[in-house]
């Protein structure tokens, strides 16, 4: 009997932890990138991402689908996927086909303490690992966390170097594609409810 009470108690605790997990509200996330160069400006918008924040540990994890980046010029979109991000590049792992370039992931922690019980804005730094084009780098990103009622808003703007992620730009296009790409991320999170 004692065991059952203990078990139930632990399950309750587990559930409580569950409620400390926040995920993105549908349609509230946008990731845009912007490349400014002497010859042309290139921008694309990604409206879907998986965003998870665990308030008890300050863990933030984000996954985006590369093919969801939409460009005004669809030919650019095709070249982005085919020539630069190599989205559909197949890698065999133990004989199973995987496509590591299909996703980009960030896994990190917010360094500052945030009071999730009261509304307000906190400037934060987030340190973690950013994986893109099957290359992982340690990054620290400046951002803002805003608590509004039940929701948490995450915002940040940061730059990544194309070279750091082994994305090759032929010398012919050096003037078309910036060395550093600016990435803008916005998302509104709500407490996670298991479906």
């Amino acid at each position, binding site marked *: 009997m004692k065991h059952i009470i203990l078990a139930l108690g632990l399950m309750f605790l587990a559930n409580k932890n569950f409620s400390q997990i926040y995920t993105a509200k549908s349609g509230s996330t946008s990731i845009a990138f912007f490349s400014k160069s002497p010859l042309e400006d290139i921008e694309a918008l990604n409206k879907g991402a998986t965003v998870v924040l665990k308030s008890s540990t300050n863990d933030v994890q984000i996954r985006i689908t590369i093919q969801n980046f939409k460009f005004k010029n669809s030919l650019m979109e095709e070249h982005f996927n085919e020539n630069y991000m190599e989205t559909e590049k197949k890698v065999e792992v133990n004989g199973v086909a995987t496509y590591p370039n299909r996703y980009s992931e960030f896994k990190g922690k917010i360094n500052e303490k945030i009071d999730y019980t009261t509304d307000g804005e906190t400037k934060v730094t987030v340190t973690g690992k950013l994986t893109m084009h099957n290359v992982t780098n340690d990054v620290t990103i400046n951002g803002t966390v805003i608590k509004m009622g039940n929701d948490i808003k995450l915002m940040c703007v940061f730059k990544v170097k194309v070279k750091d992620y082994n994305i090759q730009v032929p010398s012919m*296009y050096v003037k078309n594609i910036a060395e550093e790409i600016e990435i803008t991320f916005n998302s509104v999170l709500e407490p996670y409810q298991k479906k």
Partner: protein
Amino acid sequence: MQKIKSKIFVLSVLFSANLFAQEDLLSLVDQKDDGPRKVYATFKTTKIGNAQSIETVKNKHLDFKISHRFGNITDANQKNPINYSGQNFFGFDNASDIRFSFDYGLTENITLGIGRSRMKHIIDGNIKWKILQQTSDFRMPISLALFSSTGYSHDPMKSIYGNIVKDFKSNELHRFNFFNQLIIACKINDMISMELLPSYMYRNYIIESINSKNNAADQNGFFTLGIGGRIKISKRASIVGDYYYNFAKYYQNNSSVFMPLSLGYEVETGGHVFTLLFTNAPGLIENNFIPYTSDTWTKGQVKFGFCISRTFAL
């Protein structure tokens, strides 16, 4: 009973412990998808060399093409082929065909095109409709498209009818010719794409001619099968080639009409695609190069040609 209880206990401990550890939070919400996706970029542009590729122009985009075929590099039929080459600067002095064309992506899968060719003065309208798209796991092993082209020759009537003695009235409809084909394409891997093009050619009016070797007469309509492909040599450059085989008896072993073969190099530079190729076909559209290729590789009657494609997002 006791056993079950302790199992529950262990499970719940594991469950809660798992949540405290540095875990993969993302997998709580969704899973990565390594499943099949639609294959894209089987070819770089809507044409391979002479033949159509499976590609359509992107939705609301306009593809402007300038295509050109120079004259024969050399010609074994000439008295002195080397002099012939030199005097015509390897064919650069002549133009077998020049074509300007616009292709517009009505939707992602339907392209409407219009073009004008110098050879036989043909204005052509065409449509390409991509019906099936290959998937990366080969459950759908091919992409399939339908291509249909109608040509209208604005030649003077006397050159449409040649020097024949006419015992019938001139008819505007004799200016038309039609070409329909299925494009079956497969992107085998990142490097290699292949295509099969079963097609039917129909010309409303033909000048009667007979293959002296087998006494077969030319026919208005006949079946032809094209094969094409590319091998990528870098991310942006590939070797391309295509060939058409005409099934009509008239084209078998004919000493004045041959099957078109092209071999070329294609490079994509962002918005442009440049195709540089060698071919025996003088014409640029199916309605010309399938029935009227009067030159052959074996006699060195090969032409240099190019195509410049520029895509605009409208």
